[in-house]
């Protein structure tokens, strides 16, 4: 079993934006979609280990701030080179005004 972990308050992430969330040695990117839903992916670009939270969110796309690789953050799918490998995604829920992420070990 794995626990739900608090990330931040729902209004800490603007719509169509992203924040970085570090937990232990791992880093995640937490997204707030234009429709108001929350999503979580691995925090580092699969191309060169750059923090995606410094990148640009447009609709459901996160663009890496360094080399312009793109991912669909709702599925983790790499959608533009140089990103080839997909991002891991994680379950997210909102409970008591908090965005929570579920991590499996």
């Amino acid at each position, binding site marked *: 079993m794995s626990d739900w972990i608090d990330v931040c308050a729902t209004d800490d992430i603007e719509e169509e934006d992203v924040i970085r969330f570090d937990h232990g040695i791992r880093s995640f990117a937490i997204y707030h979609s234009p429709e108001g839903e929350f999503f979580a992916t691995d925090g580092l670009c699969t191309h060169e280990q750059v923090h995606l939270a410094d*990148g*640009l969110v447009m609709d459901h796309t996160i*663009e890496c*701030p*360094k080399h*312009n690789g793109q991912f669909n953050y709702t599925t983790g799918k790499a959608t533009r*080179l*140089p990103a080839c490998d997909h991002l891991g995604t994680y379950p997210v829920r909102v409970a008591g005004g908090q965005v929570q992420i579920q991590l499996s070990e």
Partner: protein
Amino acid sequence: MMAGIVIVGAGYCGVSAAHGAREAGFEGQITLIGDDPELPYERPPLSKWEGAEPRLQPIFANDWYAANDIDLRRGKRVTAIDRATQTVTLSAGETLSYAKLLLATGAAPRRLPPEALLFVKPHYLRTHSDARDLARRIGDGADVLIVGGGFVGLELAASLAARKAFVHVIEAQDRILARAVPPEISRRVHDLHVERGVTIHTATTITAVKDNVARLSNGQSVRAEHVIIGIGSVPNTDLATDAGLSVDNGIAVNDRFATQAPNIFAAGDCCNVPVADGGRARFESWQVAGEQGRRAGQAMAGVAPEPAQPPWFWSDQFDHCLQVVGLQSAGTQNTLRPLPDGGIIAIETRAGGQITFAAGFAPGNAAGRDIKVLQKLMEAGIAGDPAVLADPGTPLKTILRQR
């Protein structure tokens, strides 16, 4: 054997062309020929060393080529094109037929004239083998002279300074990166290098060399165990010239990357393309090489190439990153946008607020997001009020949203 697409050059452009043709639905044979023995790799890491040696970063894993039915021929050179028979000849004497041929032959480092090579055998950087050779020969604490204050020279200066080498950069212009970025960005990059121990001599040339000591036009003398030449590149056009194709600072192509021979295409550093303002340009950038390759692949597959994006590139300088998008032009207004952590973006706009160029320099990737928004504003033709562009309190994305 049915003739398909033959791609000469297996750098980022050639590989992107193969990828682009397959993505566009091309089902015929694709042969990708590169003279480097390695699996096709990214060139940007060659001047940006993180460890003891430059990384060899493959563009795609080895099994990608078979999975996409791309016949990769490594370590093979194309020596001639026969337009009449639609064949190319390889160095081993083999001939290959093509229905469509792409020249993605890249560029080679510009050489100093022979009379300037007075002291040591100078180093040039183009291949992974060149970079590995540099990293192995130049030890910690070595005296290194770099001729040329462009991106490659400065990235190497940063890589070597981080290894405790004593680095001098000689630049003939009155500032580094003079052709590529506005003066404010040149100054910031210059200051960072000086702060980290690199000595930069601008408006300076080498006047004489004796016993590994270079006399400089500014009166100083510099001892150099190693000399690296980074004064730009020249397009590899010999194959095209020998085949009777038009060459003018690169192989001349139209907006679908076709040469005057409709079944011969050229893309990447080796080609000269029409650009938005009605002129022509040859680019030397990773993103442009990949994009032109992909678009040429689409054209060869018989589909209309996707539109060109504004040219973009980045350069790592120590722990800072420089990102540039668009093309510089005369008669634009220059606006400076400060970033929260000491970075800055220089933005050029036309009279109506149309954004034509931006260059950002900041620690880490702090300029990345704004540069990407500026690129989207350029692509969409959305004007930016210089007062808003200069205000760090207004996220640039709000301009994009207000359209």
